[in-house]
């Protein structure tokens, strides 16, 4: 196929010295010429290919994409095609279908990908989004970002792993934060900054909370947290629970959340939370801190181990000192809380490898991290069974529960 077919035009009534000479084609003629050099595909075929590992790339402008696009399409505006296509389609042998509004821009883009960048299997969808929509094929209409949101989340939009789609998921996500203390404070602030809706449960007496301020001393903690979150990001809806979690209310409170962030300070609540989250199939991003050390893991019910697979039962009270008794480095909850927030963002957006089936240990004094494998326990008293088989009165209970709680006071 000739890459550049010379075209000769002669305007009527124009006298040209030296006879015929090449004249630049009109824009429409140029597009026609390009189309003869690429492969085109009908929307009906594209529709059949939805789940076939074909990369569908929308090359229109941001506002066109935002008004609606093909389901699963990635957005790479034609003006950024050369610089951003590798992030969207890293494999040049992968089949790529481009579309725009009517099939012209995508034809030009397909030509570039095939002839300039060496993509081996590129097509342009005829008729573009307009024809697709006219045929009544399914479209995805993403949330419209306001100009303020576009500015606020612009750094996320630039990350291919997050982008507008990931940001939309973050804005739609509902995350329950248990404990607005050392761990919960930084988690709440950063998730709020990312646009995640979160709730703050007042489960205990809280200290070292960067979410609160001196002038709000005496203000209920959940109210203070709400004020800080709204000051940072008015997009975030805060639902407050002035309550302590127990077996009678935990299922109701957890139901409907996408993720729970566990920063609670006592074993009975951790086990209770684990059991309820398994029953509701809600992943828990869990962290614990003591002294200069922290632990972090993600418990995704039935996909990976649960907390009981890791620790079948809690240690006796004398071996489970609280931070209040043992002390904790003030920045450590910040470090671990932000690692939790990171895992939450990854789970919501689907980016990267979540910390499922792995336990991360962080030692601040030696500045080292250690990763341990956590396996599902086939004999786990909770997650080896189906959710329906787990009864209300089994939740949060462990061997010697009565003695444990008596000793813990």
């Amino acid at each position: 196929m000739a890459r550049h077919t010379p075209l000769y035009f002669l305007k009527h009534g124009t006298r040209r010295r030296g006879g015929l000479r090449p004249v630049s084609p009109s824009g429409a003629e140029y597009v026609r010429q390009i189309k003869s050099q690429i492969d085109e595909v009908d929307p009906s075929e594209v529709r059949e290919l939805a789940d076939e590992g074909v990369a569908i790339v929308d090359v229109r402008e941001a506002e066109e994409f935002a008004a609606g696009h093909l389901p699963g399409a990635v957005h790479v505006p034609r003006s950024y095609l050369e610089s951003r296509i590798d992030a969207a389609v890293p494999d040049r042998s992968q089949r790529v279908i481009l579309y725009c509004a009517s099939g012209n821009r995508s034809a030009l883009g397909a030509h570039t990908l095939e002839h300039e960048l060496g993509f081996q299997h590129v097509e342009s969808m005829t008729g573009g989004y307009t024809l697709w929509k006219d045929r009544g094929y399914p479209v995805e209409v993403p949330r419209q970002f306001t100009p303020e949101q576009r500015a606020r989340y612009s750094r996320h939009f630039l990350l291919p792993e997050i982008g507008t789609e990931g940001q939309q998921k973050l804005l739609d996500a509902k995350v329950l934060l248990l404990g607005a203390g050392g761990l919960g404070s930084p988690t709440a602030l950063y998730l709020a900054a990312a646009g995640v809706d979160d709730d703050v449960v007042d489960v205990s007496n809280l200290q070292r909370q960067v979410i609160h301020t001196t002038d709000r001393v005496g203000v209920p903690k959940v109210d203070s947290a709400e004020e800080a979150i709204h000051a940072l990001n008015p997009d975030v809806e805060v639902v407050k629970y002035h309550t302590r979690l127990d077996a009678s209310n935990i299922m109701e409170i957890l139901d409907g959340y996408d993720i729970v962030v566990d920063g609670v300070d006592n074993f009975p609540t951790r086990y209770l939370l684990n059991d309820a989250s398994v029953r509701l199939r809600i992943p828990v991003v869990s962290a614990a801190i003591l002294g200069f050390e922290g632990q972090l893991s993600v418990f995704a019910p039935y996909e990976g181990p649960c907390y009981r697979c890791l620790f079948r039962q809690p240690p006796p009270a004398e071996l489970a000192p609280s931070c209040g008794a043992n002390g904790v480095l003030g920045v450590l909850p910040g470090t671990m809380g932000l690692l939790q927030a990171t895992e939450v963002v990854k789970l919501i957006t689907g980016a990267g490898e979540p910390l499922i089936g792995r336990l991360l240990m962080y030692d601040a004094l030696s500045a080292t991290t250690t990763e341990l494998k956590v396996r599902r326990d086939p004999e786990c008293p909770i997650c080896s069974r189906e959710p329906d088989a787990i009864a209300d009165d089994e939740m949060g209970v462990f061997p010697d529960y009565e003695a444990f709680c008596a000793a813990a006071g």
Partner: protein
Amino acid sequence: MRLPGSLAGAMATIRIPPVLRASVGGERELNAEGSNVGEVLRALADAHPATAQQIFGADGDLNRYVNVYLNDEDVRVLDGLDTPVAERDSLVILPAMAGGAEG
């Protein structure tokens, strides 16, 4: 030739969790010798008797609330206390921690 089960013992490193440090004079890491996980932990318990009842239950097995990892693997999915230990292996003792919100 070294015979299985009758090794003079490999020198392994044991990471001591915060809750056990008071029992070992504040050390964060100790070396102990043994041919398997049980022997290494016994050597630790002999040197620091206060750790014995925290690591081992009355039946001589690991307490259910203590996890021990050989390098990065839970010894319970290996051969438990009988899991062989090689020179320069690392043991991690990991009791559950609950510190969080209250701190």
